[in-house]
């Protein structure tokens, strides 16, 4: 990211000059910021990358029309991906699996861990709905063979089946499996796998850029007082406290 690195370079220069804690006024800071040339297209790409990765397909479509930024992926595939994600999030795992297989049969065929987690989620949903016999049958037929192939799958399977053993499941040591966060975890795993299969990064660039900004500011705090950004939502420069 050119923006980030030019800021870093500036910070490094300042750091080199600083013998004691240096104070940089808002004017100086803004002047320096103005010296950094940032391409509008780069910013747009960053936004588009965020919308695409997070699956905001309508927003991405609007943004494409308004800004002329071409997404690096067919927007139609986002709809499919979101449908899969949503299906897992609402507990329709079988439906999600079918959708993934329609999208690209290679994903689950070459990713045993993801496949196992989806099947495990299916089992969890059966148990949640009180379909005990069906759950047992499913565990035996579909999941047990995977456990034989892989030790860690077996352990996870045992943990999941243990859900059947507790009367008060919610307060049992395996209660977390029934939590909504488990669905979200599985959903995000599928989402990431689909993105990877589309040669797309699993995470948007923007959050990591913000993390780098915070890191750089923390580094600089030790050397200088400057107008820093504390509120990331407004990105306002705060006057340096001297």
């Amino acid at each position: 990211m050119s923006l980030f690195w030019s800021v870093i370079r500036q910070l490094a220069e300042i750091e080199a000059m600083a013998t004691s804690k240096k104070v940089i006024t808002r004017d100086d800071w803004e002047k320096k910021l103005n010296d950094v040339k940032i391409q509008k297209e780069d910013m747009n790409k960053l936004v588009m990358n965020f919308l695409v990765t997070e699956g905001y397909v309508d927003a991405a479509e609007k943004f494409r029309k308004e800004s002329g930024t071409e997404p690096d992926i067919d927007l139609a595939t986002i709809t499919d991906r979101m449908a899969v994600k949503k299906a897992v999030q609402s507990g329709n795992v079988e439906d999600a699996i079918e959708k993934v297989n329609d999208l690209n049969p290679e994903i689950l065929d070459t990713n045993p861990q993801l496949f196992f987690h989806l099947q495990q989620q299916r089992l969890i949903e059966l148990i949640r709905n009180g379909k005990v016999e069906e759950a047992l049958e499913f565990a035996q037929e579909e999941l047990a063979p995977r456990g034989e192939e892989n030790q860690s799958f077996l352990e996870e399977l045992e943990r999941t089946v243990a859900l059947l053993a507790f009367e008060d499941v919610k307060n049992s040591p395996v209660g977390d499996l029934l939590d909504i966060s488990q669905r979200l975890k599985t959903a995000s795993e599928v989402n990431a796998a689909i993105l990877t299969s589309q040669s797309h990064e699993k995470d948007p660039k923007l959050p990591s850029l913000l993390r780098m900004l915070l890191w750089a500011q923390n580094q600089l705090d030790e050397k200088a007082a400057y107008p820093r950004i504390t509120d990331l939502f407004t990105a306002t420069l705060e006057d340096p406290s001297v």
Partner: protein
Amino acid sequence: MPGSASSTHRPEGLIERLRSAAADGGEAKLKVLRELKNQIIGNRTKKLSYIKLGAVPSVVSILSSASSSVDCLLVQCAATIGSFACGVDAGVKAVLDAGAFPHLINLLSHSNEKVVDAGARALKMIYQSKAAPKYDFFQQKNIEFLISLLDKNNENVTGLGASIITHSCETNNEQKILANAGVLKKLINLLKGTTTQRDASLESFATIIQQNPEVITKFVGPENGTTWGSLLELTKDRYPRTRLLACICLTKIKNAAPSYLQSVGIRTKLILVLLELVDDFGQVGDEALFTLSSFIEHEEDLQKLAFEANTIDKLCHQMQKESLQAKRLQGIFTILANLCSNLESCRSIVLQSPKALTIITDALTHTTTDVRVAACVCLKNVSRSVKLLSAGHFMTEAVIMPVIQLLYDTSTSVQVAALCTVSNLVVDFRPHKSLFVQSGGVKQLVELSKSMDSSVRLNAVWALRNLMFLVDTRSKEEIFMEIKLFPLTRLVSDSNPSVQEQALGLVCNLVNGPLDSIMYLFTEEGLLLNTVGRELRRASKPQVLVQAMYVMCNVASGKEFEKEAVMHQLLSHSSEDDNTESIIVSLLQSDVASLRTAAVWTVVNLTIPTGAGALARVVKLRNAGVVSQLKNMVNDPCLDVKLRVRTALGQSMTFGDFST
């Protein structure tokens, strides 16, 4: 029962519906295909049971009779066939037997991109299996077809092209054909494509350059700036798998054409990248281990660099983790073995690392053959240290017992590795040997020395030879009782010269030491001595002759009786023809310095000027032309020979110079 919904999912029911759908046609086809596809994807067990029930031919028959306008049916067929072929060799075979191949190829020229994708994916799956047929690169039209695949703007189709190469390109000639047809250039262009394309082309790229310096010089190398640059750049890629593949390519370049990749900077960088990849606990990390191992294998400098990059600490630390997969353990042991093959500092660090030796010896009983072999080789190389050996670190029950157990292993490769390790462990250092003898190791070594497999036989004899080295008289007797005279005689005249060499070395160690030891050669009317003598006249491999000569040399250090026996052996002629020179003279004339040394040493022992027969022996040797031959050798280029020749001549002169 409440689970009745899932009983329609049972293979038998579905297969019934599939058959009737294939026969009747109609809308049912699509539904049943989709159901089958969703059942088998990701599920190896189901794939196998459906294959057994004969599902594949039905699917292929739907594909072959489908009209090319029913796109979604074509897609479902291809996807189902592809899944049957994915990761299951029996599936690939079933798909090919059912005649799916030409139909899938037809899909590649379909107008609907989704159909093309599905067809290409299925074919790619087939080519990712070892069971796939070999693609014939020698036919021009096949090469043209391959290039047309790589030219397509569809990552599944280019991926198929790359898979065909990775699967089928094996020989030097095939590599050349592909490179010269411009395939390498196409692959390099694909490096700019999507992640999937990049990885697939890196993989085929590695296949085409593997062990082929000619192709590398022509197409890669630093003078082909862009390719070289892209490969280096890709070692920093954001995706671990891409970094790994770039490292694999560079490793293959270095191994085939060592003049590339001499820069210490790049070498260190590569080691660091690979070490970082090792942190990945999946397939990438495993492969990184093997790549690193192959990168440093034959070069001590690289081993040093890897050592300095803290490879050992890292691996020893990782080794401590519980429930490591077999591949991971094998990889770790292989690298440690490489590092310890030459560098003493590595050996001591491994040994100092807490639990490392325990983990290695535990792995000797691992259920996976490759792990047992790797652990064994690792133990062998760690024990190459004379210092650590003599400190008795290895001659403990904890180490020796599992190693001996491996001598009984069902796998030949494990046996050979174990024999090499035993060879190392038993060498020298008397106090520790008895443990091995007492633990019943000798019996199995002797058993293996009778193996039909010559590498097992060779290493077993080698281990016995080392065990016999400087062993105390009692153990020596015990070992000899196990080996027995006749089998030992047979080994001395084994059909494999390397086995002979070790067997003679074993005899040499047997007769070395107190005079009693020499008597082993004289039992049964001197059977063993005669056999050694016969090999001296018959063998052609210098190393065999050297060992045989040292046996004679040791015997010649005995008393009158022994010396006379050696005289008899050495003064006989190499053929029936009496006019040829005696065996000792022809061996003194050998081109091989070590053989001349052994021969002169023997003469030195025979000409020691004490004993009743000393004068007579010197006369006999002189008459046989030995003394005049020695005189020709006073300025021998080999210093060792030169010195001994002077001793021998000096000794023969004590009785006066009869040369005039």
